[in-house]
């Protein structure tokens, strides 16, 4: 055992250990299981779901924990817990979506599920990390898994292109991020965010620190696909296997927001005037460009990519507000966004059949008569993404804009609501295809049991969180309050 790391530290990272062990187990099972594709695929997917379930269960002892472990490398707190739940739920939904998709595409399931678990592990570390090194390791673990997953459908050219683009641009942006982090280290002499905050507090206007902030914003901006660092997103989203696109747009984005909040609210609260301005500008261009570009898309995955860019813009509003309310509104939004986004992609997966790719707008024509439930689900997700009550998306947006108004950023909220009105145009356009157009050819779009289950979960969450979000609001607020050194958030207000 290395010096300084005690047994209790291992106890606190139990969930991470469980998912690591589970991931290895999946890899072993892939080799050990008999080569009858159908049966072993089913077994592997169940095993993956079991691992995710076990990891979720292992989070339970830490519901009320709030400690720093391993000498301030990792924080076990409600904030991390909230994100870990989001990641694990997203991973489970992704697995449920993948089962038939992999069959249709004829891709090997073993490594696929292993990589999903690895990516999840990376995200969990990112949310828990309160040290630049830990955060970076988590980020790399996640990113590398996604590079491979994006190109997982080997015979498909688009998938290959997506992987290469994602890898090259991703590596480049990680370099920028790392450069920024190294300057932060150089100025403070520490990589621990909480140790760094008071040291950097005295030199908030230091141009080197400003440079570091800009570099880190650029690096993080790439990960959350904020404009102008979003160029990769549409191509990668379009080319990657659909369930991976879903996981990428939810898990990776949520984890990057967790990292962003940790770095800026825990490590750099003192230079908040600088980064708030940066993020405010980023937020405005991100939602505006995302929504305007989405207006003209005819491929549903690209449309959802641009829509997800726009949503990153909305979430940034919470960062700009920078208050505990802003953070809790972001947490609420991220969870709600996860369900609606995953649900929307689940419908796209449903349309993937042996004879139909199913990711063009016209493939949705007449869906309401061919599969009324899928059409209704998609209708709900579109309304929710657009922020129309009584869906969950409304509650999320409402409270995000509320946080902005509360923090004095009324102008940002105005731009936000106008953007969400613009976005309704393209969300509704999809609804027009589903409900008002005649059906197209191709075999019947039918969901298998696992996909149906995923859809039902997403639909239920979208409705319940829209009508009665009481619990979510309370949990998110409690989670937001554990972020940062006690009181620093209040000091920011």
């Amino acid at each position, binding site marked *: 055992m290395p010096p300084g790391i005690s047994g209790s530290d291992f106890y606190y990272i139990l969930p991470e250990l469980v998912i690591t062990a589970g991931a290895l187990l999946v890899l072993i099972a892939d080799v050990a299981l008999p080569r009858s594709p159908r049966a072993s695929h089913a077994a592997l997917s169940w095993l993956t779901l079991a691992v995710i379930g076990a990891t979720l269960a292992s989070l339970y002892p830490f519901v009320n924990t709030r400690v720093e472990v391993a000498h301030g490398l990792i924080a076990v707190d409600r904030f991390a817990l909230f994100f870990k739940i989001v990641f694990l739920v997203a991973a489970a939904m992704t697995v449920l979506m993948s089962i038939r998709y992999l069959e249709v595409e004829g891709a090997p399931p073993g490594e696929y599920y292993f990589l999903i678990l690895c990516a999840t592990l990376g995200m969990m570390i990112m949310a828990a990390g309160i040290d630049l090194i830990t955060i970076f390791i988590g980020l790399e673990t996640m990113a590398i898994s996604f590079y491979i997953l994006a190109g997982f459908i080997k015979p498909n050219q688009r998938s290959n292109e997506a992987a290469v683009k994602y890898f090259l641009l991703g590596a480049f942006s990680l370099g920028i991020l790392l450069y920024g982090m190294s300057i932060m280290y150089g100025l403070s002499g520490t990589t621990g965010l909480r140790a760094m905050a008071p040291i950097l507090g005295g030199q908030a206007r230091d141009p080197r620190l400003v440079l570091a902030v800009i570099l880190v914003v650029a690096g993080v901006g790439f990960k959350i696909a904020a404009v102008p660092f979003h160029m990769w997103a549409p191509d990668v989203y379009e080319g990657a296997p659909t369930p991976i696109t879903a996981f990428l747009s939810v898990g990776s984005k949520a984890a990057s927001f967790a990292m962003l909040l940790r770095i800026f609210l825990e490590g750099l609260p003192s230079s908040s005037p600088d980064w708030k301005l940066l993020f405010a500008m980023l937020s405005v261009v991100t939602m505006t460009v995302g929504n305007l570009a989405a207006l003209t898309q005819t491929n549903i995955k690209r449309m959802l990519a641009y829509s997800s860019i726009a949503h990153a813009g909305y979430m940034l509003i919470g960062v700009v507000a920078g208050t505990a309310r802003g953070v809790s509104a972001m947490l609420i939004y991220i969870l709600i966004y996860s369900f609606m986004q995953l649900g929307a992609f689940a419908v796209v997966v449903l349309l993937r059949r042996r004879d139909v790719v199913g990711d063009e707008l016209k493939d949705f024509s007449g869906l309401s008569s061919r599969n009324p439930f899928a059409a209704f689900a998609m209708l709900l997700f579109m*309304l929710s993404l657009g*922020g*129309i*009550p*009584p869906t969950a998306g*409304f509650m999320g947006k*409402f*409270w995000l*804009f*509320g946080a902005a*108004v*509360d923090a004095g950023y*009324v102008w940002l*909220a*105005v731009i936000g*609501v*106008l953007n*969400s*009105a613009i976005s*309704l*145009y393209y969300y*509704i356009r999809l609804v*027009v295809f589903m*409900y*008002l157009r005649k059906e197209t050819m191709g075999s019947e779009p039918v969901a298998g049991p696992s996909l149906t289950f995923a859809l039902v979960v997403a639909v239920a969450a979208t409705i319940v969180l829209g009508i*009665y*979000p*009481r619990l979510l*609001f*309370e949990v998110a*607020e409690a989670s937001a309050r554990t972020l940062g050194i006690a009181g620093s958030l209040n000091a920011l207000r």
Partner: protein
Amino acid sequence: MNHYLSVILFVPLAGALLLLLVPKQNEDAIRWIANAVAFLGFAISIPLWFWYNPQSGDFQFIERAPWIPSIGAEYFLGVDGLSTLLILLTTMMGAIAVLSSWTAITERVKEYYIFLLVLQTGMIGAFMSLDFLLFFLFWEVMLVPMYFLIGIWGSANRLYSAIKFFLYTLVGSVIMLLGILALYFYSHSVTGVYSFDVTQFHKLMLPYNLQWWIFLAFFLGFAVKVPMFPFHTWLPDAHTDAPTAGSVILAAVMLKMGTYGFLRFSLPILPDATRAYVPFIAVLSIIGIVYGALVALAQKDWKRLVAYSSVSHMAVVMLGMFALNPVGITGSIIQQLNHGISTGALFLIVGIVYERRHTREISEYGGLSKVMPVYAAIFLIMTMSSIGLPTLNGFIGELLILQGVFTYSKLWAAFAASGVVLGAAYMLNLYQRTMFGKVENPKNERLTDLNHREFATFAPLLILAVWMGLYPAPFLRRLETSVQHIIARVNTNYPAPAAGATIEAAPIATITPGQTGGGTAGTPGGQ
């Protein structure tokens, strides 16, 4: 009794859920269920008329339960005289709209009735919510079903009209949402409590600057819905392309959402800003009155004509409201009901011939009174109601509004009166072109008169038109305390209602000439 409002609110929604279970091939079963539910919804709301106590100035039938406690949002329902009447209008028009669709809708019947019933719950909810967030939720819930009603079952240009309706209303209301949030956070900074409780907001005194901005935000939300010039352009398109029932609901109820919003929120919560905005609103209203009427005069499309007449009539309603005196506001509320009744009926009337001939061109018709005498008679009564002929409902509303506006400004009153004159011009012109003369178009020779079902859709409207025209006192009585509450906030020239004061004087007295602007019994009006 405790959950009375919830029952009224959720009966249509429950009906919609019930319809989900019926296989879509059973179209007749679906029609029967939808009609039964809509009728039931109306029937159970009728006791509201009797149980509502007009003497008490407070909100009644209150229901409160925590909804999102961490932000102070509540499930908070309650009604006063204003919302009582509008809810009754809604449930009645809902039943009529459902009944009128029996043969008009033959495609996707199940979805149609589901949307119609969900819409019904949304509208009722908006009228009874006393929690601002809950109100906003219902307010927005109405958009989607209406979008589908226009988009799926509408006529030629339906997709364009539907999205236009949707986006216009949406842009207005999201800005309103920001106003709500600003109000919410300000109220917390003063009271220390996070709450969307509208009755608390009614007691707040906001700084003038904040009021001004919040009024603007609310104005954008409500003015689009009313619709006020220049935000009205969605209305003619939406009305023209909507199916008959959609137009009826849109005209009779949804437009009232805007005026209701002003009366419930803008006026009492933002009194200083309201006074400051009076000239602005008055100018827009006057433009709306004249412009709407002139454009209506020029229409060749029957339904479009009625739609533009709505723009003009609703502008009169707004002008009456912003006279900010008891007579004007009372008149404006009565006129909202009248507009619901007469314009709702006029859209039904267009719908009847549209279903038979599939054209709305006025020139296609002529001499219909020969072949459809009952229809022509009803149309005549509703035309008279719409232009405000004495003994019918429209007269009472217009008289009160003119009186109220006259007290404020004689010039405005002249413009308001011009709306009445122009209204007579385009309505009588329409009537003459479609009903009188010879039947020149051979296609019109065999048109059948109203059947029993169609007659039944008009019957309640006819009864109400005559009732309100001859004996409006019960309606005025129900409005009295509600109007006093609004006035007490917004116009300090009128004394606040004494606590527990009973109103004994006949409310009809408020419209006797010579007693300009008298609110409560015998109080002198004044500037």
